[in-house]
């Protein structure tokens, strides 16, 4: 209690920030219960939502209130008792606002997990203490590392069902830690919990005196995410050119966009790609007035001292720190389309930062088995939920960085030109 008071005092001194996290788990490992618990303990669950869930649960004859119904929003989900799609949930504490991308564990797991992880600062993986690590735990950890989610939390759930046995927890934690090390996984935290009984969720539990780490909520509130942003490489993809057509404002020409990485300041020398022309930043505007600097994730409008031809899809960077201007790209691709596989020779639309081009698949180097990490170099294609290393050639150059260095300028999507569906997600390994 005293801790909570202390935190809210501290919170008044600094504004709340935002943490996005993705949750993943296998069937029945208690993920819905955990989310329900987080919402409940932070008073983010409303009584009419709870009543509705209780009523439906009772009507179905469930033995206890099925908190999964809170997130299963679609008729088909409730009827079939499954989760089809990524659901977004929100809660806040005095320190942080949280956005949960809740990804289902079974159907379309890879597509949904990749989608949820793409914007996540943190991934939360659950395992059942009785069962230990299962194939899906490893797969989720792998996808987290593939998407370069900076923080990973493993919750060993249902500790109450193994009598809070320290040995059980440590065995799972050790096994997972050594597996994660092989993945070049990010910052890892392992927490023993009981989502059903609320242990180690909002506060440290007396049932695990041997556990010296933080409660889950404390960790979520305090994990340091500010330095996950790349503040070194200036990358400003131009979204839209603002040129007011009115007599009040004349001769205004500003380049609107969201800072992907780096810090921009008026007076900085910049280079514009793909032209390679150089100029200086004359001002950085927002609707609330000019600012001294812009950094991610700010949306601003940049003006330059020289009149050069710049349009959507161009990138403002620094003369000595620029992305590759590349038509040949190697990337890991996660295939997301059930109607047709990715094939060598096929053409797609590629969307990368604010730039859209066409691309042809030049080669499939291997297909990766996400459970064993085995590379199948003879794979002829990538089917739904399969991941592989692919060579692409684009019609116009992309202004690209390696995904491991920059998630914004290293990620892209592929779009089917006939159906307009989003069919693939790519993470650039090499661009030249």
């Amino acid at each position: 209690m005293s801790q909570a008071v202390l935190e809210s005092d501290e919170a008044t001194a600094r504004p709340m920030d935002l943490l996005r996290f993705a949750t993943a788990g296998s069937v029945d490992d208690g993920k819905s219960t955990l989310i329900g618990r987080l919402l409940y303990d932070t008073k983010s669950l409303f009584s009419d939502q709870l009543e509705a869930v209780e009523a439906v649960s009772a009507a179905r004859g469930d033995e206890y209130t099925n908190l999964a119904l809170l997130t299963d929003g679609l008729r088909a989900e409730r009827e079939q008792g499954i989760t089809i799609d990524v659901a977004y949930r929100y809660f806040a504490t005095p320190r942080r606002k949280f956005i949960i991308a809740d990804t289902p564990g079974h159907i379309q797991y890879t597509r949904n997990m990749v989608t949820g992880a793409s914007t996540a600062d943190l991934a939360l993986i659950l395992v059942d203490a009785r069962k230990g690590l299962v194939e899906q735990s490893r797969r989720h950890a792998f996808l987290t590392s593939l998407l370069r989610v900076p923080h990973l939390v493993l919750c060993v759930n249902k500790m109450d069902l193994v009598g809070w046995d320290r040995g059980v927890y440590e065995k799972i934690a050790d096994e997972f830690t050594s597996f994660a090390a092989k993945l070049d996984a990010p910052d890892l935290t392992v927490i023993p919990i009981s989502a059903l009984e609320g242990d180690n969720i909002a506060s440290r539990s007396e049932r695990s005196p041997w556990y010296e780490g933080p409660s889950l909520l404390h960790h979520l509130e305090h994990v340091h995410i500010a330095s996950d942003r790349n503040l070194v490489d200036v990358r400003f993809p131009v979204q839209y050119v603002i040129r007011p057509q009115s007599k009040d404002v004349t001769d205004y020409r500003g380049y609107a966009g969201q800072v992907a990485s780096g810090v921009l300041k008026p007076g900085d020398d910049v280079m514009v790609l793909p032209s390679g022309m150089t100029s200086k930043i004359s001002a950085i505007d927002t609707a609330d007035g000019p600012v001294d600097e812009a950094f991610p994730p700010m949306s601003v409008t940049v003006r330059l001292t020289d009149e050069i031809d710049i349009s959507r899809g161009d990138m403002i960077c620094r003369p000595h720190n620029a992305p590759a201007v590349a038509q040949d790209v190697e990337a890991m691709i996660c295939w997301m389309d059930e109607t047709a596989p990715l094939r060598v020779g096929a053409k797609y639309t590629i969307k990368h930062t604010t730039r859209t081009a066409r691309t042809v698949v030049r080669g499939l180097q291997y297909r990766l088995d996400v459970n064993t990490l085995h590379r199948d170099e003879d794979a002829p294609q990538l089917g739904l939920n399969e991941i592989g290393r692919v060579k692409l050639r684009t019609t116009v150059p992309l202004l690209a960085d390696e995904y491991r260095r920059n998630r914004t300028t290293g990620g892209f999507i592929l779009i089917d030109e006939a159906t307009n569906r989003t069919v693939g997600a790519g993470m650039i390994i090499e661009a030249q």
Partner: protein
Amino acid sequence: MSSADTRKVWKMSQTKPYRVSHLDALEAESVFVMREVMAEFERPVLLFSGGKDSIVMLRLAEKAFAPARIPFPVMHVDTGHNFPEVLDYRDTRVAELGLNLVIASVQEAIDSGLVRELPDGTRNRIQTPVLLAAVEKYRFDALFGGARRDEEKARAKERMFSFRDEFGQWDPKNQRPELWSLYNGRHHPGESIRVFPLSNWTELDVWHYIAKERIALPSIYYAHDREVVERAGMFYAVNEFIVPKDGETVETRRVRYRTVGDASQTAAVLSDADTVEKVIDEVAATRITERGATRGDDKVSEAAMEDRKREGYF
């Protein structure tokens, strides 16, 4: 450079915190989304009802394109069941910003036979064909809506860019995956995209933003005395649409509106919150969702919202 080295360099470069508050992050995301739409679509339109969410959305549009004017028209799907304070607000705001206002009138659609009045007189459901007819008439290809994912559980599964076929229908099982900030707005002629820039905002975020930006709202959002009747635990204002039935007593209560929809179906909540700060305190403490507290239309069934969305509702 290895990623560990990279991380070290980033940390070293951070003599300053470069902190971004959650409201600034949400604003930046919404502004980004609006600019994407303007860059990639030919005929966007912003749905503006005079409700708080659409008012915030309009403010974000101002921010996204400043110092230029908002470069698209706004549309009001007018059920004819309005609160006069809200209509006044709409017209004032539209004039201030020099916007083009398109009104899609449900009354006119009833008069011309496009839709038929429902037996209970409510017009929420019949506004969908009116909206779709206007989209077709003006050939709008992107429609900004103020819906938020925290409002309702079908909306929790909605994309930022939501594809609609030529009938305006939403197919929740066949949505485009949405990764990073790469939004796929591709569509064939006749199809359209609904865009929800406030997807990640909660009711409380909206109120915090209204306070931070000092955004004026229609007066009915703040506590005032009003003649109401109580129906199924909800308080409805007595007006031309809500006529007290036998056995109902009209009483004057201190109320405010948490949401503003069809005046015949939107209930007020008992409240003393007559300033934005008091509303924030009230919203932070409430244990009932805004739709649960105020919308008769969502109580029809477990999947009422999903069914309306499938038909083309927001």
